[in-house]
C-alpha cells in the first residue's frame, strides 16, 4: 500500500532519531555491568563468580530488549503506537481504524469498497504531522542519552576511586585453583631479615630481596614492605602456607616466615579464596640439620666373645651443629640397653673409648648375638633431636655350656694324663727315682696349666680346684716317700687314689655345670614358648620367627655343649636335642600350639636338672625292686671315690666356721661398744667426727688419681684414698679400721715424698711430693690422736664388758678346736685341702686361741685384733669362690662388681662419695693373689659399710 510507505517514513524518522541513543544506553548499561561484575568477582568468594556472571548477563539484557523493540516496530500499528499516538492521539486512533477497515475490506470485499477504505486511510495518514513526530523522536533520544550518560557516569564513579580494582577483579575471576593468572606487584620490599634458630648460635643476617638464598630450617625470615596499594590483604605464601602481613604502625607492613624447607615465598594479595601473587618471589633453600654421623672402630664386624674377653669401643661422633649425648647401645633379641658415654656441652665432634668386658651384665646374661652400636643425639630443637647410629659390632657370646665344656675338657685331659701315668707305673717292674720325679713334675705342670687357664673368663676354681690341688700335693708327698723307699706298690696306690679323687671331682664339676647350664636353657626354652605364642598375631609373625629361630639356635648349641659335661650332661644334652626337634616338628607343620607346649615341656624338664632315671641310693645304676623298677644292683657298682662329696662337706664346714666366727667377732664388738655409757659414746663419736674432718682437710690438696702407678702422684692419690677411708671409718666409729687405714696412708705419703724428691725441681712430681710431706706431718699427728682415743676407749670398754668378753673367750676356744678338727678331717679324708689352706686353718686356730686368752684377760682390743687375724686366716683357708671374670683385667671382676654395689656412707653423699668410690675401685683393681680375692672383697665390704 502506498500508505504503508508513509508509515515507513514515520518509523524511519523515529528510528533514526531514537535508535542511536537507545544503543548508547545499552552500551552504558553493559559497561556498568562489566565493571560491576569485576568488582563482584574481586571478592574472590565462592559466590563471586556466579554473581558476576549474573550481573554481566543482566547488563546485556537491554540489547535484547532493543532488538525486540526494533522487530516489533516493523508492524505499522506499533509504529503508530510509538509515534503518532503520542503526538496526535485522536488522529492516530482514526488512522488505526482506517487501517483496520482497509485490511478488512481487503480480506472481505463485501464489507465495503477496498478502494474507498484505502483512500480514507491515506487521507487520514496524510494529516499526520511529521514535524511533531520528529520532535517527539528527538525528545526520546535525548532522554535515552541522558539515562545512558547517568549510567556511564555512575559506573565511572565507582571505579574511578580505584580503577585497579577492575583489573584485580578480572584477575581474580580468571583464577584457577585459588591463584590468579596475572601476577601483580603489591609491595615495595624495604628489608628482609633472617634470624637463625638460637641453638645454632649464628648471627642475624640480611637477605637480598628476590635473590635465591640458603637458610637453615627454623630460621625466621622477617619481611618489611611498603604497600603499593592500600586496603589489600597482603600475605607471604609459598602456595601451601600463608602468613599475613601486619601493620607495624609506621606505615610499613611486616610478616614473619619460618623456614621449614625449600620454598618459593612470594608476597600476594588475598581476595577471598584467591591469591594474586607478585611476579617475583624469594627462593629459599632450607638447609636441614642432619643426624649425627657416628663411626665405631672396627665396625661392622662379628666377634666371638670367647676369644676376646675385652672389646675396645672407640667412637667418633660428628654433627653439623652440635651434639647432646653419645650413648652405647646393646641389643639382643628384644632386649635393649642404653648407656650414656658422654654428654658434650659444646662442639661438633666427640671422641672416646672404653673397653666392654665379657663379664658385663648384659653380655653375661645374653646368649643371643649382641649388636653393639654407638649412637649420638644432636641438639635440633626445630625438628626434634635425632639419633645417628654407627655400624654395628656383633658380639657372639659364648653359648650356654660352651665355656664349661672347654673347662671340663681341660680338666679331663689332665685326668687322662694321670691315667696314662698310672698305666705306665702299673706296667713297671721296678721304680727308678729320677724317672718318677720327672713324671711327678710332669703331672704337676699339666694340672697347673689347667689352674692357670681361663675360658672366656671362666676358670677352674673353688672346691674342685682345691680338691685337685690337695690331691696333687698328697700325691707328691706320697710319691716322694715311695720313691725314697723304692716302693712301687705304694706309688701305684697313691696314683690310683689321686686319680679316683680327681675323677670324682671331674664328675662333680660336670654335674654342677650341667645343672647350672640346664637352668639357663630352661629360661631360653620358656622364651621360645613365649616367642611362639606372640606369632599368633599376624602382625607379630616376623618378629616371632626371628626370635624363635634365634632361641632354637641357642638351645641347639647349648644341648651340643651339655653332652660334653659328663654323664648328666650327656643325658640332659640328648634331651635338649630331642626337645628342639619336638619344637621344630609342629612348627614346620604350622602348629604353634603344640610347638609352644613342647617348648614349655622342655623348660619344665630342664628347670629340675635331675637324671632321666633315678633310684634312691642308686643314682641311676639300676637299683630297685624289680623289672618295673629298673632291676637289681650289681655288686661293686657303687661310687669309686667320695672325694668330691667330702670336699663339698669340708667347704661347707669351713664356711660355717667362718660365719660363726664372724658372729663371734660382732658380739665382742657390740659388747665393747655397749660397755660405754651413751654420753661417753656420743662424746667419743663427736671427737671422731671432728678428727675425721681434720683428716680430710689434711689430704684435700693431694691428687685423686694418677695414670702412672709408679709416680709420686699415684702414691699420693692412694694415700688420699686411704685417708678418706680412715675418715669414713672414724665417722662410723670403727677406730681400729681407721688407724689401719691411716697407717697405710702414712706409708703411701712417705712413698710419695720419696718419689717426689727424686723428681726434677719445680716439676709437678716434686710439688706433689712436697704436698705429701706436709700431709704426712699432719696425718701422723692425727693418727696418733686416733690411736690414743682408741686406747682410751678400749680400756674403758674392756673394763665394762668383762662378762661378755669371758663368754667370747670360751667361744673362741671352741671354734679353735673345731678348726683343728677340720684340719685333721682334711688330712685323713679322701679330699685333703691344699697345704697352704691347711696352714691357714692352723694359723686361724692359733689366732683364735690367742684371742681367747686376751679376751679372758679383759684385753678387748688385743682380743679383737687376734680375732681379726683369725678371721682373715679362715677366709684364706677357704677355696676361692667360682671365678667368672677376666683374669687379667685391670679392674678385676670382683672389684668392679663390688664397686657398683658398694654402699657409700650417707655422710659422704656428694661428689666426694663418687670420687671415693672411684678410688676404691681403682685400688681394688690391682691384681690380687687368687686366694686373697675373697678376703679382699669382704675387707672392702666392711670398709664401705
Amino acid at each position, binding site marked *: 500500500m502506498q500508505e504503508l510507505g508513509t508509515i515507513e517514513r514515520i518509523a524511519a524518522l523515529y528510528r533514526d532519531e531514537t535508535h542511536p541513543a537507545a544503543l548508547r544506553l545499552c552500551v552504558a548499561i553493559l559497561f556498568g555491568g562489566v565493571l560491576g561484575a569485576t568488582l563482584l568477582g574481586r571478592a574472590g568468594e565462592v559466590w563471586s563468580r556466579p554473581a558476576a556472571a549474573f550481573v554481566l548477563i543482566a547488563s546485556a539484557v537491554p540489547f535484547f530488549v532493543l532488538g525486540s523493540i526494533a522487530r516489533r516496530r516493523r508492524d505499522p500499528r506499533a509504529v503508530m503506537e510509538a509515534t503518532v499516538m503520542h503526538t496526535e492521539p485522536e488522529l492516530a486512533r482514526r488512522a488505526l481504524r482506517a487501517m483496520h477497515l482497509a485490511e478488512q475490506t481487503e480480506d472481505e470485499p463485501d464489507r465495503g469498497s477496498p478502494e474507498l477504505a484505502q483512500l480514507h486511510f491515506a487521507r487520514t495518514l496524510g494529516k499526520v504531522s511529521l514535524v511533531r513526530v520528529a520532535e517527539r523522536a528527538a525528545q526520546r533520544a535525548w532522554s535515552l542519552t541522558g539515562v545512558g550518560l547517568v549510567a556511564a557516569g555512575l559506573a565511572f564513579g565507582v571505579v574511578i576511586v580505584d580503577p585497579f580494582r577492575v583489573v584485580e577483579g578480572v584477575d581474580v575471576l580468571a583464577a584457577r585453583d585459588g591463584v590468579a593468572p596475572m601476577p601483580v606487584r603489591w609491595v615495595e620490599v624495604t628489608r628482609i631479615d633472617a634470624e637463625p634458630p638460637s641453638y645454632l648460635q649464628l648471627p642475624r643476617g640480611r637477605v637480598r630481596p628476590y635473590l635465591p638464598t640458603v637458610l637453615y630450617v627454623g630460621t625466621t625470615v622477617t619481611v618489611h614492605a611498603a604497600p603499593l596499594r592500600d586496603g589489600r590483604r597482603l600475605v607471604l605464601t609459598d602456595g601451601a602456607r600463608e602468613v599475613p602481613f601486619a601493620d607495624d604502625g609506621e606505615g610499613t607492613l611486616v610478616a614473619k616466615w619460618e623456614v621449614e624447607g625449600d620454598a618459593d615465598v612470594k608476597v600476594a594479595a588475598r581476595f577471598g579464596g584467591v591469591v594474586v601473587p607478585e611476579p617475583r618471589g624469594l627462593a629459599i633453600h632450607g638447609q636441614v640439620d642432619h643426624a649425627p654421623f657416628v663411626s665405631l672402630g672396627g665396625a661392622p664386624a662379628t666377634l666371638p666373645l670367647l676369644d676376646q674377653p675385652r672389646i675396645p669401643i672407640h667412637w667418633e661422633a660428628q654433627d653439623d651443629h652440635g651434639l647432646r649425648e653419645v650413648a652405647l647401645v646393646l641389643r639382643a633379641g628384644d632386649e635393649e640397653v642404653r648407656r650414656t658415654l658422654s654428654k658434650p656441652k659444646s662442639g661438633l665432634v666427640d671422641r672416646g673409648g672404653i673397653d666392654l668386658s665379657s663379664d658385663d651384665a648384659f653380655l653375661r646374661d645374653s646368649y643371643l648375638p649382641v649388636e653393639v652400636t654407638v649412637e649420638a643425639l644432636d641438639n635440633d630443637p626445630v625438628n626434634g633431636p635425632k639419633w645417628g647410629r654407627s655400624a654395628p659390632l656383633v658380639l657372639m657370646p659364648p653359648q650356654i655350656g660352651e665355656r664349661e665344656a672347654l673347662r671340663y675338657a681341660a680338666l679331663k685331659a689332665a685326668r687322662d694324663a694321670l691315667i696314662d701315668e698310672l698305666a705306665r707305673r702299673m*706296667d713297671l717292674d721296678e721304680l727308678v727315682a729320677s724317672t718318677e720325679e720327672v713324671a711327678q713334675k710332669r703331672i704337676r705342670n699339666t694340672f697347673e696349666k689347667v689352674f692357670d687357664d681361663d675360658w672366656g673368663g671362666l676358670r677352674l676354681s673353688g672346691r674342685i680346684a682345691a680338691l685337685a690341688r690337695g690331691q696333687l700335693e698328697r700325691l707328691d708327698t706320697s710319691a716322694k716317700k715311695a720313691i725314697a723307699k723304692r716302693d712301687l706298690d705304694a706309688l701305684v696306690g697313691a696314683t690310683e687314689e689321686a686319680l679316683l679323687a680327681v675323677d670324682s671331682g671331674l664328675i662333680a664339676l660336670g654335674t654342677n655345670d650341667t645343672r647350672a647350664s640346664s637352668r639357663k636353657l630352661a629360661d631360653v626354652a620358656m622364651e621360645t614358648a613365649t616367642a611362639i605364642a606372640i606369632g599368633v598375631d599376624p602382625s607379630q609373625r616376623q618378629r616371632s620367627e626371628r626370635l624363635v629361630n634365634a632361641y632354637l639356635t641357642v638351645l641347639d648349641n647349648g644341648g651340643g655343649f651339655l653332652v660334653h659335661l659328663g654323664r648328666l650332661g650327656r643325658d640332659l644334652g640328648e634331651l635338649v636335642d630331642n626337645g628342639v626337634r*619336638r619344637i621344630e616338628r609342629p612348627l614346620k607343620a604350622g602348629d604353634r600350639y603344640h610347638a609352644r607346649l613342647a617348648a614349655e615341656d622342655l623348660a619344665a*624338664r630342664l628347670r629340675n636338672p635331675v637324671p632321666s632315671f633315678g633310684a634312691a641310693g642308686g643314682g*641311676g645304676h639300676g637299683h*630297685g625292686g*624289680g623289672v*618295673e623298677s629298673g632291676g*637289681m644292683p650289681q655288686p661293686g657298682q657303687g661310687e669309686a671315690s667320695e672325694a668330691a662329696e667330702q670336699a663339698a662337706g669340708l667347704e661347707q664346714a669351713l664356711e660355717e666356721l667362718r660365719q660363726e666366727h664372724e658372729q663371734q667377732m660382732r658380739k665382742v664388738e657390740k659388747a665393747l661398744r655397749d660397755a660405754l655409757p651413751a654420753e661417753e659414746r656420743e662424746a667419743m663419736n663427736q671427737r671422731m667426727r671432728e678428727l675425721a674432718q681434720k683428716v680430710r682437710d689434711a689430704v684435700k690438696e693431694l691428687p685423686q688419681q694418677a695414670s702412672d702407678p709408679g709416680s709420686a702422684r699415684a702414691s699420693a692419690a692412694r694415700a688420699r684414698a686411704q685417708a678418706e677411708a680412715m675418715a669414713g671409718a672414724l665417722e662410723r666409729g670403727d677406730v681400729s679400721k681407721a688407724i689401719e687405714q691411716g697407717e697405710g696412708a702414712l706409708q703411701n705419703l712417705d712413698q710419695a715424698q720419696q718419689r717426689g724428691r727424686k723428681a726434677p725441681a719445680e716439676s709437678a712430681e716434686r710439688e706433689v711430693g712436697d704436698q705429701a710431706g706436709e700431709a704426712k706431718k699432719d696425718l701422723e699427728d692425727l693418727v696418733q690422736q686416733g690411736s690414743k682415743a682408741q686406747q682410751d676407749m678400749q680400756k674403758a670398754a674392756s673394763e665394762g664388758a668383762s662378762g661378755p668378753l669371758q663368754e667370747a673367750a670360751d667361744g673362741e676356744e671352741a671354734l679353735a678346736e673345731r678348726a683343728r678338727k677340720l684340719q685333721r678331717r682334711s688330712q685323713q679324708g679322701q679330699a685333703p685341702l691344699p697345704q697352704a689352706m691347711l696352714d691357714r686353718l692352723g694359723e686361724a686356730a692359733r689366732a683364735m686361741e690367742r684371742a681367747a686368752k686376751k679376751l679372758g684377760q679383759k684385753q678387748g682390743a688385743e682380743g679383737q685384733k687376734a680375732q681379726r687375724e683369725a678371721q682373715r686366716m679362715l677366709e684364706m683357708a677357704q677355696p676361692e669362690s667360682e671365678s667368672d671374670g677376666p683374669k687379667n683385667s685391670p679392674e678385676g671382676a670382683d672389684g668392679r662388681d663390688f664397686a657398683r654395689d658398694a654402699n657409700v656412707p650417707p655422710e659422704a653423699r656428694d661428689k666426694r662419695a663418687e670420687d671415693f668410690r672411684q678410688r676404691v675401685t681403682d685400688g681394688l683393681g690391682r691384681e690380687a693373689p687368687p686366694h686373697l680375692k675373697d678376703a679382699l672383697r669382704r675387707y672392702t665390704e666392711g670398709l664401705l659399710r
Partner: protein
Amino acid sequence: MMRAFWLTVLLVLTWSSSATALPLDAERGRLAVLDLDFAAAHRILDGGDSPDVVIERARLAIYEGHCDEAQTLLERPDLEDDDTLNLLFAVAKGCARATAGTVVMKDEKAGVWVRFQDDEDRALFPLLVKTATEARAALTNDLGASLPNPVKIDLVRDQFALAAHTGLPEEAAQTTGTVAVAKWGRVIMISPRATEDGYPWADTLAHELTHLVVSMATRDRAPLWLQEGVAKRQEVRWRPLTRFDDVPSPDAVAWEGIEAGIALPLTGLGPSIAMLPSPEQATVAFAEVASFVRYWVKENGEQALPKLLVAIKELPRDGKVADAIKEVSGTSFADWEKRWRAHLAATTPKAPAELSPTQALPASGLIAAKKRRLAQLLQSREHHHAAQTQVEGARELFPRDASLRCMHAVSLRGLGRETDAAAALGTKDDILRPTGRWWSMHDFFELGKGDPQARSLAVGREPYNPPVACQELAWGELPEDRVMRILCQAARRVPRE
C-alpha cells in the same frame, strides 16, 4: 501287661550296665573304657554333653592317648571340682605337654601303636612290636584274656614324662627307680637310653601288658598284690625261660624281707609298689607278691588264674576279692597267705649275698667299685694291660659278677688275646646274673652256637650299648639284619664318654 513292660526295661538296663544307679550313660561308658572296648565307649558317650558324660569322654580320650582333647573337655567350667576331675585334668594336661611334638608309629597288622617322645627311639619299633606281639599271645594263653587292637605304648624319655603321663609323683618314681607304668589303657615306659646301662625293657613291656590285661579282665578290681604278682609271673613267660629268671628267687627275697621285718602284708602294700618309701622295700614287695602268686598257682593249677580273673570281674558291686579267691580255690585268702608264709618258713630259701636287698654291701664292694672304675678309666685310654690288672683284682672279690667278666674280656681282646677273653667271660655256670653285654659277648664267642636267646636277651636289656646293638662288630661295620643295622646306627649316635 504294663508291669511286664517295665520289668523288661529294668532287665535291659541292668544287663547293659553292671550298675543300676543313674546316670547310665556315664557309668556304661566308663565300664566300656575299662573293658578297653573303645568302639562301644564311643557309641555310648559321643555327643553327650552332661558333666558326668563329659568326664567319661575325657577319660576315654586319655585312654586313647588323645590328651589334648581330654584337656579341652575337662576345662569346662561347669564340671564339679572333685578328686576324679582333678586327677584326670592333671594327667590330661601333663600328657598333652609330654606328647607335644612326638612321633607315632603303627603296625596295623600286629595291632601295635607306639608314640615316641624321642624320635631317635624309632629304631626300637620293630623290637617293641615283636615283644608286644609275643607277650600278648602268651597272655591270651595264660590268662584267657586278650588285649584289643591296637596295644598302645608310650615310650618316654625320663621319669619326669612318666610322672606327667600317669599321675605317679616323680619323686616316688625316683625313689623306687620306676621305669614303667601301665595306666589309662596304655603302657608308659622309659626308653632304655635314659639309663646308662639300659634295663630289661622287653620283660618290662611284658610285665606292663600283663597289668593291662588284668585290669581289663577284672574291670580294674584286681588288688595290687594280684596285679603285681601276676605281672611278675608273666614278665618272663612270653619267651623261653632262662635259669637266671629266678635269680634271686622271689621266695628267697620275700623270706629275707620277712625275716628282716621289712616285708609288708600282701593287702598292705598301698596304692602302688612304686610309691613305697625305699627301693629295698619295693624289691621285697615285688618278691612277696611274685612268690605268693607262684605258690597259689602251683597249688591250684594253671587254670586257676584265668578263673580267678573272671570271678573278680563278676563280683557284685560290693563284693570282695577274697570271696572270689574262695570261690575259685575253696580256701580263704587269709588262709592262703598263712600257708604261703609257712611254706617259706619251711623251705627258708636263701638269696646270694651279692643280690640280697636286706644285707649291706660288703666292704669289698667299695674296693671292687674302685677297681672297676680304674679299669674303666684305663680302658678308655686303651691301657688294656693295666685295665686287666685292675679287673682281675675286682674279680677276685666278686668272681661271679657278669659285668666284671665283660670288662675283663674287653681288656683281653684289646691285648689280642681272644681265647683268654672267651675264658674270662665264662659260661652261664660261672655267673650270677648276666648283663646285656654279657649275653652279647657270649653269643659272639660261642659263634652263634650258644644260647639261642642270647642275642635277643642282650638287646632286650641294653639296646643302646653299641657293641650289643652292633653285635660286637668293629666301629664302622654294621650288622646284616636290617632291624639290627638301624639299631646299631642309633646306638652309635648316643653320646658316650
